């Protein structure tokens, strides 16, 4: 599915504290930072010096009509040019390096943080949102930080240098020519802000168009059946009209920006020419005193160049306003704290995710106890209340019930993706909060409703939970869940690339691989969230066999949808409203003719109807 890009929030003011935090990242790369500054000082100095060279040439060679000393002058000039070239190369390289290093650091920090954040965070945050923060926001910010440094520094140096040089050459002429500077700065900032506003409007309209295209294409068939083509096209025309108007308005504002600034600047140049020219013509009577032809030319050059850095500085301010929202979002992400944390004592004994100490881990046999567990979300929504359950090691528990009944919560609590709000969960009689998350999770096997595979080879995926497993172990695991035949049927067998999220495999095959992954890890506690959608009969059978194999000798919790799985469970729990409503074996529950009985018969009927209809998916290509 296509996701329309998010709109930027409009920031009215620059929040410097956010930027200060982000600039810390730049400061950690001191070498790059300093190199950029030094190179820029040189480059700006050369930029200021160029008009002086022309000026010198005019006063010393052109006006007196001599070429004495031209060769050393030319050589010096050329040398300076080459040095400036070197300066440009240096600052671009280093500023680029700085940009990439900042982006690298921010991403690295954010990714590490993401590995620690609890599921309460993932529940309320869409993956698309995180992706946008990690990919586009970090790029945008690092670019801002590195290049705004360049921009600001160069602009300031160049502007101040120009002004200083002008004052040295002729302070009176400088004062006259620079009269336009204050309005220039004022107008620049105003116009930049205005531009930003209209750009935002155009961008907003643009994302609406994207949404409309998306809807138009997804709903094309419905539009046809409802014969709404004309109305839709008319409405769309209204949207594109709005975008057109907004874009033109934005283009006109930015089109007027440069001319306005330049015209203002030209007043300064005109003043320089008038008063400077008088200084050359009649040094005695002129207001500004004696001025050489060279100085006059230099002044004119400085005046025409000066609006450049000013425009640049205004631009940075606008950019910062524009990126303010990005900056805040990234900082917020990095400042989010996980809810489920290991205590310092347990971390010390058992190690964290980066330095685990498995040698200190107590082995798990698999007894699981829910001791008066209550769970509620942060918003106060209570999912489980006073839930107690004792499961002996090796038992299989099937959880059935409607969506939202609390089955997933039980499983999530067991995996310690969440922790109980009240009560305790004991593994082998010990509260799991007295151990680390990794201790439990490294003894856990988990198969999701929609199997998730990673890109890489089939082999890589099977050994995901045990990276040091040998090829033989991988093959054994695959064989145990009957996945080997289809693996060997692939082009490169175990070394077949899976493609993004297993795009090339069928759902059933992905299931089998995720079972193999669990078998290889050989966990003490196994959690299975069964798929609701049916897969072809043959694979279905293979999956059943795989499940049966995995359930052997370990404590298993199954959020069950398939009757065959449910029937073989040691105990079936019917969960409704966060409570156990019925509990017992298949036969016991059928006998009481409650919820389970209804569920079973209905499902039985659906299964049989589907089986009788048979047929393959020819229509839904």
């Amino acid at each position, binding site marked *: 599915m296509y996701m329309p890009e998010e709109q930027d929030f409009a920031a009215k003011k620059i929040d410097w504290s956010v930027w200060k935090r982000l600039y810390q990242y730049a400061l950690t790369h001191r070498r790059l930072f300093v190199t950029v500054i030094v190179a820029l000082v040189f480059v700006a100095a050369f930029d200021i010096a160029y008009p002086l060279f022309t000026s010198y040439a005019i006063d010393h060679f052109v006006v007196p009509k001599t070429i004495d000393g031209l060769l050393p002058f030319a050589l010096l*000039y050329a040398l300076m040019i080459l040095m400036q070239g070197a300066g440009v*190369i240096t600052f671009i390289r280093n500023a680029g390096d700085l940009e990439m290093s900042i982006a690298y650091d921010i991403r690295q920090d954010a990714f590490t943080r993401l590995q620690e954040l609890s599921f309460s965070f993932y529940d309320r945050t869409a993956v698309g949102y995180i992706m946008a923060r990690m990919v586009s926001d970090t790029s945008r910010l690092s670019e801002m930080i590195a290049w705004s440094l360049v921009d600001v520094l160069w602009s300031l140096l160049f502007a101040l240098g120009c002004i200083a040089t002008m004052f040295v050459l002729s302070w009176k002429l400088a004062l006259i020519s620079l009269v336009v500077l204050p309005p220039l700065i004022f107008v620049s900032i105003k116009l930049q802000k205005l531009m930003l506003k209209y750009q935002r409007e155009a961008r907003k309209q643009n994302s609406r168009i994207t949404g409309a295209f998306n809807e138009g*294409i997804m709903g094309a068939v419905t539009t*046809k059946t409802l014969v709404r083509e004309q109305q839709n096209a008319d409405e769309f025309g209204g949207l594109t009209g709005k975008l057109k108007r907004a874009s033109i308005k934005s283009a006109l504002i930015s089109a007027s920006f440069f001319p306005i600034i330049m*015209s203002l600047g030209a007043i300064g140049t005109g003043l320089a020419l008038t008063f400077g020219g008088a200084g050359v013509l009649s040094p005695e009577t002129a207001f500004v005193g004696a001025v050489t032809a060279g100085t006059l030319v230099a002044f004119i050059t400085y005046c025409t160049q000066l609006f450049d850095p000013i425009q640049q500085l205004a631009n940075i301010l606008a950019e910062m306003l524009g990126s303010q929202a990005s900056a805040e979002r990234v900082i917020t992400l990095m400042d989010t704290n996980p809810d489920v944390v290991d205590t310092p004592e347990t971390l010390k004994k058992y190690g964290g995710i980066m330095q685990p100490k498995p040698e200190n881990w107590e082995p798990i046999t698999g007894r699981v106890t829910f001791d008066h567990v209550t769970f509620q979300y942060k918003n106060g929504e209570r999912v489980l209340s006073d839930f107690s359950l004792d499961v002996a090691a090796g038992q299989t528990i099937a959880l059935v019930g409607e969506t939202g009944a609390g089955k997933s919560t039980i499983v999530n609590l067991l995996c310690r993706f969440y922790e109980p709000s009240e009560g305790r969960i004991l593994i082998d009689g010990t509260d799991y909060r007295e151990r680390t998350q990794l201790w439990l999770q490294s003894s856990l096997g988990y198969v999701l409703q929609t199997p998730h595979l990673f890109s890489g080879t089939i082999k890589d995926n099977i050994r995901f939970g045990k990276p040091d497993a040998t090829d033989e172990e991988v093959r054994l695991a695959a064989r145990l869940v009957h996945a080997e035949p289809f693996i060997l049927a692939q082009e490169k067998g175990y070394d077949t690339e899976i493609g993004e999220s297993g795009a090339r495999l069928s759902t059933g095959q992905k299931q089998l691989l995720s079972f193999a992954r669990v078998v290889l890890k050989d966990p003490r506690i196994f959690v299975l969230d069964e798929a609701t959608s049916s897969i072809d009969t043959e694979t279905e059978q293979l999956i059943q066999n795989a499940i049966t194999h995995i359930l052997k000798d370990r404590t298993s919790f199954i959020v069950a949808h398939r009757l065959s799985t449910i029937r073989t469970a040691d105990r079936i729990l019917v969960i409704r409203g966060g409570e156990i409503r019925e509990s017992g074996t298949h036969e016991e529950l059928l006998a009481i003719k409650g919820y389970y009985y209804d569920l079973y018969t*209905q499902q039985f009927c659906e299964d049989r109807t589907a089986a009788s209809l048979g047929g393959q998916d020819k229509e839904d290509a």
Partner: protein
Amino acid sequence: MSKLIETIQSALAKQRAKRKKESRREAKPEQKKTNWRLVGEIMAGYRRYLVMASVSVILATAFAYAVPYVTSFTLDYVIQGIDSTTPAFLLPLLTRLGGREYFVQNLYVCGICLFVFTGMNCLFTYLRRQNVALASEGVAKGLRDRLYRHLEDVPYDYHKHASTGDLVQRCTSDVDTVRRFIQVQLMEIVRTVVMFTFAAAVMFTVNVKMTLISMAFLPLLTVSSFIYFRYVRRYFTASDEAEGALSTMLQENLTGMRVVRAFGQQKSEIEKFTSLNRAYRSKTLRLIRLLALYWGLSDSVGYLQIALSLCMGVIAVYHGTFTLGNVALFTTYVAMLTWPVRQLGRILADMGKAAVSLGRLDEILSAPVESEPGKKLEPDMEGDIVFDNVCFGYDRYNDVLDGVSFTAQSGQTVAILGATGSGKTSLVQLLQRLYLRTAGRLTIGGVDVNDIEHGPLRRNIGIVLQEPFLYSRTILENIRICDPCASDEDVYRAARTASVHDVIESFEQGYDTIVGERGVTLSGGQQQRVAIARTLMQKAPILIFDDSMSAVDSETDAAIRKSLLSLRRGGITFLISHRITTLREADKILVLEDGRVTQQGTHEQLIRQDGLYRRIAEIQDAVS
């Protein structure tokens, strides 16, 4: 200088963003030939703006080049009293004004000229950008509207096979590439050519030899920029691919977070991310180094050119063939030219992209649209529907429907039972001519559906799909989408018939709740019922429910059917369902197996026959 920084930034950021989008697309063979017909079509009506823009470019450039001339004039004519460098045609005019003396006394005239010329340059620059904006935004709007309408008009089959993401991508970013081409690149090329011509013309009239010297490096700059920008492309690609790999890994990690945690693999995930993050950084750095080298070197070459023309100018002045004003003029002109020349290569390299985008858009626009019939008959849509040996297949080899024959009489309800893939959906879709049958005859009220226009045909057939699509707007607007003038009361009535009124009322914003992508997600059953209400508002004589109550519980299903039937008069209703309780009430039941009608009749008849219908009925009976 600041232009330089800006360029590097935008080169990095924009190209990166664009490439990213492009690389997500499947690699398709690039169209070699630019489609000039399409270019002509989309430009129609906007040529006037482009002509005005070009005229503005010429005038703006003329004034831009006149500005340094004022300085040069002041230096030579006014200050030094040399009139050999002033164009001959100006001299009489200057003499009439009072010659040099006048200007010496009134130097401000030069200052004002300088300001006015700059102002005119600015004015025409503005006009250029205004006209270009009008043209490019107009073309973009035209393209967007055409694409949208075209995508509505292509056959159903097209959408079944096209990827939404790809189409949206084309309609947005490819249109944008074309727009940017007109707005930025096209005009930049015109401007560079005009600038070059102007500068050359003025400089040549002043001094041929000095002009040649002053432009000596420009061809080198042009050629090297072109070569460079072609060469650097692969580095952009490498950097984009590295970024793509990083995003993919990130996406997988985030969507598979449960697996990562349950397997305790955070450490190895961080290690994986680190190495990809590092690769992305180093690949991009390589690109940045190349950019730095190019901009640094070309910067130096540009300045060397200025230095050369300055020094040679000094020598020429010494020999008396050049003046102070000339030196100032030449160095300024050369400085003005080096920038656009350095950019030219990038623009030329980018032109290829616009052609590729245009080709991709043309691919959409040249897809054939649904054809209207030659005859435009208007039958009695409440009449009998006759399928006579109708065949249909998506391709030549697989028949989805293989000789289906039955008659539905006016006023009847026809129920269809069949497995997925048995052809039920195709059968009802043929009625709306979403597909064309391959053989046989299909008539409504005695008229072949192929002779009825799309509008009247589809308006008179209401269809509710199993997974209905609701537009991203309020529920109220969704229900009355076919009849925007309908009163709220009518909408409520339809919603009550579809048993969804109470559900909607229970929402915080009631009927004003926005659904779809930007709003609330309704459950499958709620969506189906809103779609039913929407179809009811269509007041079509023929109604089709394509398994459209599958997500509704059987009691509500029965209630909806009951209130529906009480409203029906005339017209034929088709019901596709697996539920015997639904099927049994129909006047006629069709059992479809592998594209053939294997059984037809009433419930009573079919229940007595040995066959699929009875088997299913028995299963469902046993349970209820």
